[in-house]
């Protein structure tokens, strides 16, 4: 492990050398052999970046890789703020939407990887950006992770499907990160919405949310909490669970049927100072050697190069063989894109910031349900149905959510001052929050009435 400190000194020396070369000849950038310093902004954990850094440098001893670790949002912001004098070669992160933002802002440059044999799609999701601005190098699916000790102590059944998490047994035991904070969670929510339809999907999402213990602000907050036993069940991306398992935590993971396999990506930054090395790194990631790194216990992501699965340990999920994995939902990127901010804001206003009220309503419903099971009562049953509908009710329809007018409240890009401005974001949100608050209060009242009738 001493290698790291040596790497630092080496990187300084190499950086100085690279600078000298650059100053001496402007043609250095066109050199065939990659060399010099390669700066990568990434949101990936150290376990993963270090493994790739070492493997790549072994194959390309002349290049020094410098990793800048930032969460996805901060990384995007950093690239935006520093674009005028860009010093970053690659952007390397999970969430495809972050790459969409960068692409939209013209901060990426196209590159077609030289590696052959990468399929067009993984699950139902295209591996590469159609315009070649970024490329998928690994796939990940979303699922349910749990702490075995916690489940045993609390006597909880093992969940298999999203719908399982709506059951009363899980009340106050589940956690998720906010979709507005975590691109991966956003895709989970969106997958459920596309898989089950807008109305039904939101119903599932909200019924699950009624059982949430907490909604974390970082994606890693969820596996972290499951690992330490702060809560029992977490909705996470597969590698969080798999790598926690590999580090020895008593946790397990399952893919529900409705899940999407989504690629994690890499893209060359526009005006990259070391374009040759950046492109070399992309090719390395996709090469068999690079793909094998993904199988390491601390990383555990699904390779996009099907050949690599031959070297995978037994039981390793393979989306190219196991057609049920992620194939259930035909994930439509355009639908997702059109309502991206709206879905985030809806989740925040209806769930995250109203969690206490939502949970109170859910608990009342659970109680009424238990009472009804013992002593059926038709009127109470109807009331309970109304309560459930109130919880599930949405302030906007699927069509409205996709309406650019509404989406416009959440973006700043407007061509001219004369363009019609819908409402301000704060106004829209206040309306939704008030809607949810009232509905949850009424739902709770109805559920209480139902429980009283069944008593």
């Amino acid at each position, binding site marked *: *492990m001493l290698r*790291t*400190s040596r790497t*630092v000194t080496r990187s*300084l020396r190499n950086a100085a050398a690279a600078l000298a070369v650059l100053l001496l000849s402007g043609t250095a950038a066109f050199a065939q052999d990659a060399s010099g310093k390669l700066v990568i902004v990434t949101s990936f*954990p*150290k*376990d*993963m970046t270090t493994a790739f850094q070492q493997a790549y440098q072994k194959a390309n001893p002349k290049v020094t890789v*410098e*990793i*800048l*670790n*930032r969460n996805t*949002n*901060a990384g995007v*912001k950093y690239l935006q*703020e*520093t674009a*005028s*004098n860009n010093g970053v070669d690659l952007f390397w992160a999970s969430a495809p939407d972050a790459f969409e933002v960068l692409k939209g802002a013209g901060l990426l440059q196209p590159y077609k990887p030289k590696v052959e044999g990468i399929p067009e799609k993984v699950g139902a999701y295209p591996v590469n950006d159609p315009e070649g601005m970024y490329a998928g190098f690994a796939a990940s699916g979303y699922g349910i992770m749990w702490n075995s000790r*916690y489940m045993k*102590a609390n006597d909880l059944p093992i969940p298999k499907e999203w719908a399982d998490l709506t059951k009363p047994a899980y009340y106050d035991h589940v956690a998720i990160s*906010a979709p*507005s*904070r975590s691109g991966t969670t956003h895709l989970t929510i969106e997958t459920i919405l596309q898989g089950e339809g807008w109305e039904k999907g939101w119903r599932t999402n909200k019924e699950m949310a009624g059982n949430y213990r*907490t909604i974390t*602000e970082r994606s*890693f*907050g969820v596996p*972290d909490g499951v*690992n*330490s*036993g*702060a809560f029992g069940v977490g909705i996470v991306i597969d590698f*969080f669970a798999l*790598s*926690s398992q*590999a*580090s020895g*935590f*008593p946790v397990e993971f399952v893919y529900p049927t409705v899940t999407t396999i989504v690629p994690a990506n890499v893209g060359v930054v526009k005006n990259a100072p070391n374009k040759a090395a950046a492109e070399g790194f992309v090719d390395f990631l996709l090469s068999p050697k690079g793909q094998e790194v993904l199988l390491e216990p*601390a990383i555990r992501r699904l390779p996009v190069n099907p050949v690599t699965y031959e070297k995978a340990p037994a039981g390793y999920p393979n989306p190219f063989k196991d057609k049920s994995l992620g194939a259930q939902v035909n994930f439509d990127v355009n639908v997702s894109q059109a309502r991206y901010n709206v879905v*985030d*804001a809806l989740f*925040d206003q209806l769930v*995250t*910031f109203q969690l206490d009220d939502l949970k109170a309503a859910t608990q009342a419903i659970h109680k009424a349900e238990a009472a009804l099971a013992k002593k059926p009562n038709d009127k109470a049953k109807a009331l309970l149905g109304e309560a459930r509908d109130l919880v599930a009710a949405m302030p906007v329809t699927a069509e409205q959510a996709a309406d650019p007018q509404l989406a416009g409240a*959440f973006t*700043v890009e*407007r061509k001219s*001052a004369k363009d019609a401005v819908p409402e*301000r*974001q*704060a*106004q829209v*949100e*206040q309306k939704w*929050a*008030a809607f949810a608050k009232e509905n949850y209060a009424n739902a709770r009242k109805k559920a209480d009435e139902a429980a009283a009738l069944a008593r």
Partner: protein
Amino acid sequence: MTSLALTRDRIARVRPGPALAALLIAAFLLLFLVVPVVQVIFVAFQDKTTGAFTLVNFADFFQNDLFMRSFWNSFYVSAMSVVVASLLALPLAYLTTRFEFRGSVLIQSLGIIPLIMPPFIGAVAMQLLFGRNGSVNLLLRDHFGFSIPFMEGLNGVIFVQSIHYFPFILINLSASLKNIDRAMEESAQNLGCHGFRLFRRIVFPLAMPGYVAGASLVFIKVFDDLGTPLLLNVNDMLAPQAYLRISSIGIADPMGYVISVVLIACSLLALWVSALAMRGKDYATVQRGGGGLAKRRLKPLEMVAAYGIVLLILVLVLAPHVGLGLLSFATIWSFSPLPDAFTLKHYHTVFSESGQYITNTLLYASLAALLDVVIGTAIAYLVLRTKLPGRQWLDYIAMAALAVPGVVLGIGYLRSFYGVPMPFTGQPLSNFWLILVFALAIRRLPYALRACTAALQQVSSSLEEAAENLGATKLRTVGRIVVPLMSGGILAGFVTSFATAAVELSATIMLVHSQSDAPLAYGLYVYMQSAAGRGPGAALGIFAVIIVGLGTYLSHVVIERGRRDRGQDH
């Protein structure tokens, strides 16, 4: 009093020096605080479509239930945190300064350690100890069938914040208590005042500047703090709302910046109120040398009680660090009162990987703290001892830094300095590590400033007048009389700035541009993004705590020695 006012007038009229100092400080604040922040928050006053000036965003703020709820929650949590923090700090400060107490230097040093709660990892440690399924509650549930919701909702925030920030009160109050003239106490005693009455009527009022300085810091800090509510997943408070808005939901929306403006305004308000409370009162005492209050010997029974209280408080406030320590030696710690097994592996990992982080942190934090006490002393002096027009504004602006979210400052720095090339190398100025030091210094300046102001408030200006009457120049008076007399407060300021700068993350994360320049907090952040990084992260956190703890202890020793030496000289 009138003669005093007259002399102050005279001092102000004659000197160009203070004016120059004021200009330099103003320039520094303008360049590294006002300009970068304004670059970011002017959005709050902008119409989203036309770009014209508007206040409609503020109207939206006050009409939004969520924001109003957040506002009151923040207020409630801050006020309650001050109360709980005072309960923790008062006994420690009083017992260790008023009585012959073994190990009071040690207690004072340990008392500051809660301030150094490394980000992320600290919260994990707290959850493992006090969380719903933390050690304490698991044991309680197993043996007694109930649990205590330490970490739930707003109460959890108050609990964690009080433990985290009570050292602000402890440090400033102790410094104040030490500075009280023994003669005051003795006169009161001669007049027949004893016991609690003596404390209530004489000692505590005289220590008021320190207490108010500490309490206002706690209030503002809790009001603006982001990390704790976020890590406890309490997001209906103002600072988390601002942060969530700025960094995700509403990147394009002005509301995040509106909240930032509200935060800054509230901090200034709190400050103004505390200044109001102190106005018209003279806390200065003339005599110095004996080392403050007479230290009394405790009777055996009192001794037991006192040690009991001190121990209880120390156990409570140091528990998170004990948890951190356990975590750094733990193999796996999951849903159990103690880790499964212990190992030294994590320290090995940190030793081999993270030496650079530690040296960088020492360099950055000490430079920043040094800058802070120099500027803090200067501003305190300008405000209290000169009549320069607008001097109060230096104080207000510097304090406003407390309320600027680190993300805002970080983005502001990138916007302001990225386009500026460095001389000679041509690299962007914002990549220069000294910029990071400035960011840290600006963020921690308020702590140093409050401590220095409190210290100077307790120095009577007649001492300076005496020195000047004896022919000393202004500069010499400041150097030989004022600064030495303020040393306790300056040290308090240095220590708080240093300790908190050492673990600052939010601005750092925006500004770090290469691993070799990264401080420890960045290393912690990187570790804490993966399951395998928890142990090494905790080990690195322990390093941070030890470094700052040692630094604090050493400075206490130095200052105590200095005090003794001066005492012997007389």
